[in-house]
């Protein structure tokens, strides 16, 4: 028997998850020079993971990363098995039986918790829920957000916080020509939110925004961005940080914050108010959240290593709506080791390891489920290439027998009543979405229920 990767014994790999890391892994495998068959298994009928369901609708240019993935999906020896959830429709055991290797690229689909009292009061939400809802993710279709409060708060000062902030701050006219979900646009049209507090644990010199996104928040047509000039009096360590030449992103951010502080309000109907050196410690209210208790922080430590420490003083912020954006965590799948603390599948050079640190043969991970929720779309490319490199190095040790992959899995899933979505099926759904968007001047109107996507394929 020839080793996997040869014409008589093609290497069969299942890639679990059709987000960026899944596609970059598929591409690296298909361009590896081995004889290989890649089956990408995705729990939703729609591919592209957080590029479709995370990246903000008012950033259409970023969503063009999808064009690269659409080309990969058309490569020979690539198949999509959409609408198939690993752990629900097919087990990890079964994948191991039918593939030489399985690469988990299933992302980090749940939120980390703040762990403070009142976190679950109505009105207090995670950014994940809100983002998935306005992007039309089927799991969040039935959610509703009460946007009747005038004051909202966002905990976190990174790019997800910036996205949530913009969606709340923009008028419906500014959003209606995007691919934002129709139900979200309708709800936002009724929004009474006028004031959005964006709360950061550390100072202005440590905010995690990219320059571009911060600048954008300061230039919204119908929303002011307010920075308290006092917050721009930085401690000596922060000033030292800004002298470090490689810290140019923070230098620019501070420059932008200073300009906002100097400008003050300009009379626009909505306002973003930046808070620094504050951490939420408690949410209070009776039927729903009414107040956020914020601990004041000071910075401790050497430049570039400063951490926030509570001073013991607190501030009260009356607000009826809260979004917590403090990080994502992976979801375990039965049959795969899981690191609960970090919320990832534990790996060594992309190979999944068990609690004792021993490699589980044939199982790999890439993207957010491997690294945790850090990095942007492109970071996943180098990450997936590294995982595929480990898999290819393992070829001599992988199960030597031939594997049937989708040839067996397809009929198995059909017998279980699963309507498997192929690339061609997806293209039909895609075309229908674009056509639905056209009369409304939108690049697409997403189907937001799985049943609607399947319906558009007819009875076939």
């Amino acid at each position: 028997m020839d080793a996997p990767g040869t014409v008589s014994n093609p290497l069969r790999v299942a890639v679990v998850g059709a987000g960026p890391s899944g596609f970059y892994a598929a591409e690296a495998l298909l361009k590896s020079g081995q004889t290989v068959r890649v089956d990408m298994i995705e729990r939703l009928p729609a591919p592209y993971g957080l590029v479709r369901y995370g990246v903000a609708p008012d950033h259409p240019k970023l969503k063009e990363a999808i064009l690269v993935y659409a080309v990969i999906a058309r490569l020979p020896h690539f198949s999509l098995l959409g609408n198939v959830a690993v752990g629900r429709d097919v087990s990890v055991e079964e994948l191991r039986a039918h593939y030489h290797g399985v690469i988990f690229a299933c992302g980090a689909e749940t939120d980390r918790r703040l762990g403070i009292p009142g976190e679950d009061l109505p009105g207090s939400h995670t950014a994940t829920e809100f983002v998935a809802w306005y992007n039309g993710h089927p799991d969040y279709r039935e959610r509703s957000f009460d946007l009747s409060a005038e004051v909202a708060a966002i905990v976190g000062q990174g790019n997800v916080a910036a996205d949530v902030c913009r969606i709340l701050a923009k008028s419906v006219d500014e959003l209606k020509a995007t691919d934002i979900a129709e139900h979200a646009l309708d709800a936002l049209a009724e929004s009474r939110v006028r004031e959005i507090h964006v709360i950061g644990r550390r100072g202005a010199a440590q905010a995690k925004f990219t320059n571009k996104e911060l600048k954008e928040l300061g230039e919204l047509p119908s929303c002011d961005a307010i920075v308290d000039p006092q917050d721009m009096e930085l401690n000596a360590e922060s000033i030292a940080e800004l002298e470090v030449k490689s810290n140019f992103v923070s230098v620019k951010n501070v420059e932008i914050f200073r300009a906002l502080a100097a400008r003050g309000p300009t009379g626009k109907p909505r306002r973003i108010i930046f808070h620094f050196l504050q951490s939420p410690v408690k949410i209070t209210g009776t039927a729903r959240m009414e107040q956020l208790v914020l601990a004041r922080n000071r910075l401790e430590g050497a430049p570039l290593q400063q951490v926030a420490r509570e001073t013991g003083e607190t501030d009260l912020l009356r607000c009826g709506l809260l979004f917590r954006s403090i990080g994502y965590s992976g979801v375990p799948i039965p049959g795969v080791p899981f690191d609960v603390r970090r919320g990832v599948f534990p790996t060594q050079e992309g190979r999944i390891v068990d609690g004792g640190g021993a490699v589980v043969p044939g199982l790999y991970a890439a993207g957010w489920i491997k690294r945790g929720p850090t990095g942007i779309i492109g970071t996943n490319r180098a990450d997936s290439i590294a995982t595929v490199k480990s898999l290819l190095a393992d070829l001599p040790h992988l199960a030597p027998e031939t594997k049937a992959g989708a040839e067996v899995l397809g009929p198995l899933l059909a017998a279980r009543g699963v309507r498997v979505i192929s690339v061609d099926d997806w293209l039909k759904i895609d075309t229908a979405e674009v056509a639905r968007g056209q009369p409304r001047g939108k690049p697409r109107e997403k189907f937001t229920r799985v049943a609607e996507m399947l319906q558009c394929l007819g009875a076939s």
Partner: protein
Amino acid sequence: MTTIVTDNCKGCRFTDCVTVCPVACFHADDNMLYIDNLVCIQCSACIPVCPVHAIYADDDIPEDKRNWIDINAERSQALPTISDKQDPLPGAEERKTALGF
């Protein structure tokens, strides 16, 4: 919208920029890299990772480096794509230090 590589890149080839680009739109000659803005999705991922701040976007492009917009446009069309991390050019570390990074 435009994102460009400027002269600080000459002699580096650390290619940290290339490893984060989602759409593989960097092109290279023997000296430095150039961005193809017909493909670039303006995600700005490459800007913070460049160790010598060679990459600029839009209105952050300094006045005296705006000539690099045309150079990127021309050179990127003429040169092959690079999509994987490469070994730094000889002297890259020294140059980085000399530039003050």
